[in-house]
């Protein structure tokens, strides 16, 4: 009854690890940089796109993420995993983009309505089969994700789509482990409610 967790991008077999590649890049090996870009561009694009909800913005942020990785390669220290570092950069840039948008649209009814309430009891009129069999498009799921506030959106994307462990998420977002668990739980409940509304409508 459990889901198979989506594997995160990890080196397999004889492939060099991310940490080995960044170390090589720090010593001037540009090929190692190319390999890291190749390894991370798809999962990062997916993460950023789900975070900001716009393909164009996501691609710009992804460009900026890799450019920062190039400029600030010497700031990386091997005490942290490379994936944690690069996802932290991307997440911070995505949050900055959302803050810019918030400034542009200072007040929006839609955002106001998406405050993080605790879950409500499920509607008994919708049968589980109806919910499970219903066709919810990607766009509708994306819309439900975007209704979450950024702090909840980020953790659920990292956990359920990117497949990071709670410890890794705590490092990426820089919050305590307990807070990560609580946010993931609340975000799931909120999404569950919203997707159910979509099925009902």
């Amino acid at each position, binding site marked *: 009854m*459990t889901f198979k967790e989506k594997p995160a991008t990890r080196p397999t077999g004889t492939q060099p690890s991310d940490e080995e590649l960044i170390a090589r890049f720090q010593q001037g090996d540009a090929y190692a940089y190319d390999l890291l870009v190749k390894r991370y561009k798809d999962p990062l*694009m997916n993460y950023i796109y789900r975070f900001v909800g716009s393909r164009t913005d996501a691609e710009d942020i992804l460009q900026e993420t890799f450019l920062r990785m190039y400029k600030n390669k010497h700031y990386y220290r091997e005490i942290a995993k490379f994936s944690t570092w690069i996802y932290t950069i991307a997440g911070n840039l995505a949050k900055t983009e959302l803050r810019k948008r918030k400034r542009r649209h200072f007040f929006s009814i839609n955002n106001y309505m998406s405050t993080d309430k605790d879950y409500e009891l499920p509607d008994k009129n919708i049968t589980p089969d109806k919910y499970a069999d219903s066709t919810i498009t990607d766009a509708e*799921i994306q819309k439900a994700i975007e209704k979450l506030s950024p702090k909840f959106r980020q953790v659920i994307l990292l956990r359920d789509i990117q497949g990071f462990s709670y410890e890794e998420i705590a490092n990426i977002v820089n919050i305590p482990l307990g807070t990560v668990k609580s946010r993931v739980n609340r975000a799931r409940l909120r999404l569950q409610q919203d997707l159910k509304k979509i099925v009902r409508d």
Partner: protein
Amino acid sequence: MLDSDKAKMLLNDYIEDTLDPATRNELEAFLQTDAECRTFFREAMDTRRRLQSLSVVTPSEQFDEVLRQRIVAYVQEGEKTSHPKRGVSVMVSGGVLLAALYMFFFTDIGMAPSHDEHVMPASTISTAVPGMKPAVQKATTPDKASIPKDSMETNIRKDAQKGIDLISDPK
């Protein structure tokens, strides 16, 4: 004994398969008896499944090329910013060198000191002007009559007659 609220507290661990076997068995047994809770759990599982099966969004085909151009621009920008500094230092040191050469060739700097006969030794120079006597300053003592009287003298005398003592400290 589990109830609906306690069961829902275990939802996350159940979804992520981190419950110990005994608790898991107990929870599954409870879900068989509680239809509302069972529905809730199935929906939660389904929500997660939907998230995990979302389509993967990839960058455009031009992504690599654009990134390469941005990196090249960054590297060139770095070189540009370092060149002016180098240019300025070269110009300054060149100017200093030219100035030094000019001063060496076209001024007396750098020439060997000349022992000209017309130059008078410093020891022979006298600061006294011949034939002049130095002025003598005399101290003068003023006449008693020219000293101005103390303006308070009269008042002090009058107060003494009245027995008023304004000068000494009061006891």
